[in-house]
């Protein structure tokens, strides 16, 4: 037997560097804890941000459209841009640990270590078209996320973590089954090779291909909280701290979208009508069902959970359309959504109170925000801006995302889909307005400022400020953002 010879250069290890930095960061935090115990959380937060910054730097230095590490790493345009979004989002969410109230989980260095491992996991997920590496990335990220939820240390959080874990395990099983079937069909785990072989063979035997695709849709459906795989979402968001819930509504889904984009791109253009139809149906049901359920929620956080399901459906439509314009629209939408949701969940996080003063079941019932404008006008106005943005009222940021994706739908002949999107936006505006009505048109139940601002600190307020500015003035930088995204998506051939 010949010894295997691999030259270091052909490995192109720099493609791995960003993730390795994140992992090294996690390990460093653990080591620091070994050396000196009971350090303040602000140290960990800042260390995490620094490591993420290094991570970002290493990422931006990469050449686009290279492969590395036995060709399992794929650094194409969408891998780069989605990693940038993931890292920036993580950098914006991690300072939310700096609350003025003490929360148990942030005193543990493990929290920050796991957080960085999770980021690395998501990065692996988006930077590969190898089903095994995607699976590894997915599980690394998920297994770090479960304890992060449970750390919140309340009954609901344990419930949420276990629910998420169970669902996640099922999804992982589906993913493994789907990959196994695809491997059996084609003898490869690389998506581009699978596509080649399947196209060559004319997608025969069709029944096995469809079963594999069904497993894949289910697996990704869990991660993207597509209806009917969405049932965990509101409970998990409710159990997790608002900061983490906001994070979960943005980053894991983006990673899921990128995998879905790689996975379904060739299937959608393959001419198998079935795949496209089932995705169409899933998109429409996800948008509509989540919107209708959100109408009857009593709790703002649960409402935002359903709203984020609906937004995921909206964005999934972009993948279903599958043109360069729609795929660029996806990233644009998600960047805008990141800032809006960051702001909205941070506002909930600020108003978090340890005892349930308003309702014995919910943390954030609508009544809690009654007449907020009279007590704290700026906070109420910011929250209103986030709600208007989520509802798609121009000129706030998400309007441009909606406009662009609806435009992509129209341009590819999906007029009906665009109309359904429009009607869904009209439905959704009701539950966003409901919060605005409570804040602006009702009288406050309690007029003690401290009840609301319990959790506020300089860093939390800064984050809200950044989000507000981004949401209001987005019109001015949509143009450069969009041309960058379009360029990079086109480069990677989507």
């Amino acid at each position, binding site marked *: 037997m010949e010894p295997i010879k691999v030259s270091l250069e052909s490995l192109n290890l720099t493609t791995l560097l960003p993730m390795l930095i994140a992992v090294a960061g996690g390990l460093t935090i653990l080591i620091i804890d070994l050396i000196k115990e009971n350090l303040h959380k602000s140290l960990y937060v800042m260390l995490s941000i620094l490591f993420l910054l290094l991570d970002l730097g290493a990422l931006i230095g990469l050449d686009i459209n290279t492969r590395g590490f036995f060709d399992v790493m794929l650094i194409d345009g969408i891998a780069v841009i989605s990693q940038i979004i993931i890292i920036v989002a993580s950098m914006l969410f991690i300072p939310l640990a700096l609350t003025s109230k003490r929360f148990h989980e942030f005193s543990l260095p493990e929290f920050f270590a796991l957080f960085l491992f999770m980021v690395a996991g998501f990065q692996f997920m988006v930077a590969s078209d190898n089903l095994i590496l995607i699976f590894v990335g997915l599980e690394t990220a998920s297994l770090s996320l479960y304890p992060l939820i449970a750390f919140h240390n309340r009954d609901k959080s344990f419930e949420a973590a276990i629910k998420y874990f169970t669902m996640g395990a099922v999804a992982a099983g589906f993913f493994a089954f789907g990959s196994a079937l695809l491997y059996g069909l084609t003898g490869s785990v690389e998506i581009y090779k699978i596509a080649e072989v399947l196209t060559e063979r004319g997608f025969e035997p069709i029944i096995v291909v469809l079963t594999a695709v069904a497993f894949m849709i289910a697996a990704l459906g869990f991660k993207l909280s597509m209806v009917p795989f969405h049932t965990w979402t509101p409970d998990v968001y409710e159990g997790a701290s608002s900061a983490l819930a906001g994070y979960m509504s943005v980053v894991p889904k983006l990673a899921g979208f990128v995998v879905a984009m790689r996975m379904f791109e060739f299937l959608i253009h393959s001419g198998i009508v079935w795949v496209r139809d089932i995705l169409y149906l899933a998109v429409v049901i996800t948008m509509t069902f989540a919107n209708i359920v959100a109408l009857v929620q009593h709790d703002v956080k649960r409402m935002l959970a359903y709203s984020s399901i609906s937004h995921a459906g909206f964005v999934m439509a972009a993948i279903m359309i599958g043109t360069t314009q729609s795929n660029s629209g996806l990233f644009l939408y998600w960047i805008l959504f990141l800032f809006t949701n960051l702001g909205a969940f941070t506002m909930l996080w600020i108003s978090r109170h340890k005892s349930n003063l308003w309702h014995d079941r919910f943390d954030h019932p609508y009544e809690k925000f009654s007449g907020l*404008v009279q007590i704290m006008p700026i906070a109420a106005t910011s929250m209103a801006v986030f709600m*208007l943005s989520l509802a798609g*009222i*121009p*000129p706030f940021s998400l*309007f*441009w995302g909606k*406009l*662009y994706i*609806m*435009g992509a739908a*129209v*341009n590819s002949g999906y*007029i009906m889909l*665009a*109309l359904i999107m*429009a*009607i869904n*936006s*009209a439905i959704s*505006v*009701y539950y966003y*307005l409901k919060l*605005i*009505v409570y804040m*602006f*048109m009702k009288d406050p139940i309690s007029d003690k400022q401290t009840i609301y601002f319990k959790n506020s600190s300089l860093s939390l307020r800064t984050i809200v400020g950044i989000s507000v500015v981004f949401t209001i003035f987005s*019109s001015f930088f*949509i*143009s450069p953002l*969009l*041309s960058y995204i*379009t360029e990079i998506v086109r480069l990677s051939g989507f």
Partner: protein
Amino acid sequence: MDHILTLLIFFPALAGMLGFIVDKENIQAYGITVAAIEFILSLVVWMLFDVNNGGFQFVEFIPLIPNYGINYYVGVDGISLFILILSTFITFVGLISLNVKKNLKNMIISLLFLEMTMVGVFVALDAIVFYVFWELSLVPMLYIIGYWGSEKRIYAAIKFFLYTFFGSLIMLVGMLFLAYLYYLATGTISFSIPDWHRLILPYEYQFWLFLAFFLGMAIKVPMFPFHTWLPYAHGQAPTIGSVILAAVLLKMGTYGFVRFSLPIFPDASVALISPIAFLAIIMVIYTAMVAYAQEDLKQVIAYSSISHMGVIVLGTFAMNIEGIAGSIFLMISHGIVSGALFMLVGNIYDRRHTKLLKEFGGLAQVMPKYALLFGIMLMASVGLPLTIGFVGEFLSLMGIYKISSAYAFLGGLSIVLGAAYMLRAYKLTFFGPITNEKNKNLPDLNWKELTSLASLALVVIWLGVNPNPILKPINKSVENMLDLMEKKAITQKAKEVFSHNRVEMEAR
């Protein structure tokens, strides 16, 4: 003076933002000053406006999202100029007469933001910019109705918002599709309205796109059967809310017809004259009858305003110069008159805290000035010659007469029925003996109310006697538009309608 329109749009918003700092006690003076400056600015636009040029003037063009054909593109022509001045004028007068105690500061800031959106809608030449302001105008109005309104204010505010939002989203899909068709035709995508005006579309597309735009506009107007939100909104809104809503916001819909529907889809517009005229006539007659049966003075005005909007729609779809110019004039006159009437209702409501007709009677004896001004506005609303209401109504009906005498006759019932319900309301309020003790010692109008109403009355009579300063520029731009529509027409029917206009214009 190149950037006067941008200044005009953003000045009130900027002032509104600074208004947060102004002391609570002096906020009304601040608001009035800002609105006065804005009004003067709009008058400057009128002064510098070249009356002999029917095209767009004061044009500004800044790329916003050039890759996707979205630009900040604004300008005015004869059609939008006076609606623009109307909105700054009504805001100014409305602020003077404003009589709100609760949280006045937020009210004034909201009004200034609302003014920005109104001006923005009327000067936008890019469909997306238009849409942005169109939608944004809902937000301050939602707050004004929902916070300062009466009992069922929240229901009314949300109903108003959802109705209009739904319609405009369908319109947005229409806009996106139209931009895509433009892309197919020319190879570049564009949302610019003048570009769209030059685009010739197959009839099939025109028809569906017309319907998409129609839904958005019709809900705003509001056309029958989409009018059900309006009585609620008016019934619950505070006085200033009703004034702005009736005077300016409703005009956005009819302005949209003139700006989008007619020139972009000339064939579909001609083909749909009859169904739209049918809806408009139902609007005119049915809501006039409903107005007659109202117990509440404000609801009378609210329904009357739907009825008059019907005449505006009839005039717009007459497809000739009299009809369209007349309907634009009627938009302005109706804006002034209905604004004034809502202010008058507000005045009596402030004194008695009721708007029910049966509570009043014989008010002419205790409040003679009030009765006089109400009388003038009533005459203008009914369309008496030498008042502003006559010119527009007469021209609109004359325009539609050329299409069909039956439409003109049925539309003309607006005047007859209008006289009936307005005079009934006037009689019940002002004539007869004073039956209610509480009415014995009502104070007459104070100087604030008098200033605002007298200035409106002045305009009513001035433009009623001499409408030319306004009609001329409107005519010029409408002529341009009709020219364009004639050139674009592809169906036989549309060609006939427009060539008929041509013959008449040349004969003149």
